[in-house]
């Protein structure tokens, strides 16, 4: 079963997204903050990470940078989720090493397409 690590600090979004992902047949691991995300990514080795960029303490960009710097987790595709509409956030996320991004509010169909593509790409590599 495809495993997705969802990093999201907002409880409602976390709950909602995880339930919807599960409905789509993904297995979902949840992290509340950056540190948890790093440790879960290392232990669980998910197939994909959905990363909220605005996280307390350590933001999503930093988490992604660390993930991409680690040999164990480098291969995991990261999709950034950001509520910021500004292009700078997008660029920041991409530059941190995210493989794709989507803006909140999430349009679930679009997001699941992106997840699907990322997974395909990963397989192709």
């Amino acid at each position, binding site marked *: 079963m495809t495993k997705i690590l969802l990093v999201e600090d*907002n409880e*409602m*979004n976390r709950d*909602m*997204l995880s*339930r*919807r992902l599960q*409905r789509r047949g993904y297995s979902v691991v949840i992290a509340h903050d950056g540190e948890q995300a790093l440790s879960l990514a290392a232990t669980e080795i998910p197939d994909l990470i959905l990363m909220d960029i*605005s996280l307390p303490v350590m933001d999503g960009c930093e988490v992604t940078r660390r993930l991409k710097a680690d040999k164990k987790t480098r291969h995991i595709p990261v999709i950034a989720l950001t*509520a*910021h*509409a*500004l*292009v*700078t956030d*997008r*660029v*920041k996320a*991409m*530059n941190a090493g995210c*493989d*794709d991004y*989507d*803006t*909140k*509010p*999430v*349009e*679930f169909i679009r997001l699941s397409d992106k997840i699907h*593509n990322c997974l395909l790409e990963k397989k192709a590599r």
Partner: protein
Amino acid sequence: MSLQNLSIRRKLILITMLTSSIALLLSSASFLIYDLISFRHLLTQDLTTQAEIIGYNSAAAMAFKDEPAATATLSALMVKGDIVAAVLYSPDGQMFAQYFRNDKTLPAFLPSRSQEKGYRFEGRYLEVWHDVTLNGERLGTLFLQSDMRQWSTRAKRYASICLVFVLISGFLAFLVSSKLQKVISGPIVHLEDTMRMVSAHKNYEVRAVKAYADEIGSLIDGFNTMLSDIQHRDTALRGANEELQTRTRELEEEISHRKQAQDELLKAKYVAEEASRAKSTFLANMSHELRTPLNAIIGYSEMLEEEAHDSATVETVQDLQKIRSAGKHLLALINDVLDLSKIEAGKMSLHLETFDVSGMIEEIVTTLQPAIEKNRNTLRVHLAEDVGMMQADITKVRQILFNLLSNACKFTDHGTISVDVDQSTEQGQDWLRFRVTDTGIGISAKQKENLFQEFVQADTSIARKYGGTGLGLAITHRFVQLMKGRIGVESQPGEGSSFTVHIPAQVKLEAVGPVQAEGDSDASDAIVEVRTGRDTILVIDDDAAVRELMSRFVGKLGFNVLTVASGEEGLRLAKQVRPVLITLDVVMPGCDGWSVLSKMKADSELSKIPVIMVTIVDNEPRGLDLGASNYLIKPVDRERLAVLIEKHRLNRFTTITRTNAVPVSRLSHGHKHGKVDVEVSGRESHDKNLTSRR
């Protein structure tokens, strides 16, 4: 020192002396000559008289041939010191008796025989010949010779006296002229002194004193007048100078005042900009804060909707749909606010593309169908036959019409809404006219005043009754302005409204000066799109299809795209345009990608520009060795390319502060390729999520 350079004083003395001396000499000489001539005449007469007397006295002696008597008579001449010789000649010319003042020596010039009577001057001597007669009978001839001693003595004396007089009068003349020359030279010297003083001390108050009313007097007058003029001007000049200094001081003060004011203005501007930035940040944060719960609302309702389709009742599904649509509405409103703040911050972009107007209208009508049906309105669409394609920002045109039509739907009940589209030409420009007419509640004249202003609805009660933020028309208005169009409204309260929008059929961005690919033999092969305020990416590929695709794709990312078909041209343009990034094909006729890459990396001007190889040749190590930043193999993975470009852009982006420079140019052949992206300012690319709404 030559005569001409003598001082006036000396000249005057000299002239006077010369003149008087010449006059004196001439007159003395004439007196002398006259006197000597008359004295000689007197001497002659005297000698002639003596000759007559002696001739008379010696006549008897001659008659009697008494030589001693004759000699005695002649000897009486001894008393006459000047008689040098006296000779009596017999009628046959023989010397009869003689007398010589110096007995011992006979004068050498003594004539040997008698001559004609009369007197004559022989050398220094005066000679008189006189006939000695007795009773009319000629007895002989008397010869008298005088050395004119008296005459020469007189001449000498005269000359001495003359000389003495000349000397005395010369001395007197010198004295007199020395005194009198001052009459002329004095004022001139004074004038000269005055002049020297003026020029030495620049003292224009000094005046020369006029002594006499002669020519020098007028000269001094003239000089004084001139001095007065100069003094006057000097005073005026000094006054003007002071005035100038005062004014300069005033100006300096004024300038410093203004500078201060300017500083204050700048400070105020800075504060205002800060406030504006704060507002923008606030709006961005707010939108984040609002989107987070919205995310949950929309997400949960969607999720529940999906679940409810399987299990729950139709009513529940409908309710969930309402929650979701309300959430989406709220999202749209937030987007509106954000849009408006972006417009205000000058960050709103235009993404021009060429599209079919009828297709766009059709799409809008389909989307709006529910809204039209809600109030049981009828929609009539009329497109003029000549309406075809237009070049504009389709998203914004769509939103303009959306806003107008949804307003029409909202404020019209059981009425008719019509859309008319036609094309016209004004001032050499093609315009598309969109008219949205409804039969709704209409707008009063007073309401019209604030119609296009932000946050102002025609009536606050409207907000309660019909909802809405009051931003729709303001945004519509701004969008129209952005595309250099215009919007107008006609309305009668209670009878309906008619909004007319004019948009140029070819929306242009203010050209700032196109950069063309020079010297390119095939113009269509070199596509040059340069807009200020944007970065340029250079695409080097010999395949026209690849150039076209790359130019569209890279253009969408918010860059200028410059495409060329050959390596040589690529190198040339790279130097000219300095792109932020270059994509390079390997297999090209002529100069291939490897050599282009080597040349670029060897060129200090170009070596820092990142190069992404885009090729079918699978030789990544060689590309990276030669200095390529990345290596992509065709067919190109667009997402990957976009990510790489974003990365390179960010490297630059971090060093660039946002400018308020208003845009923007586009040019040359870009429109041939259907789509042209341009943003108004900043380097922000559009966000699909924001611009797709409802």
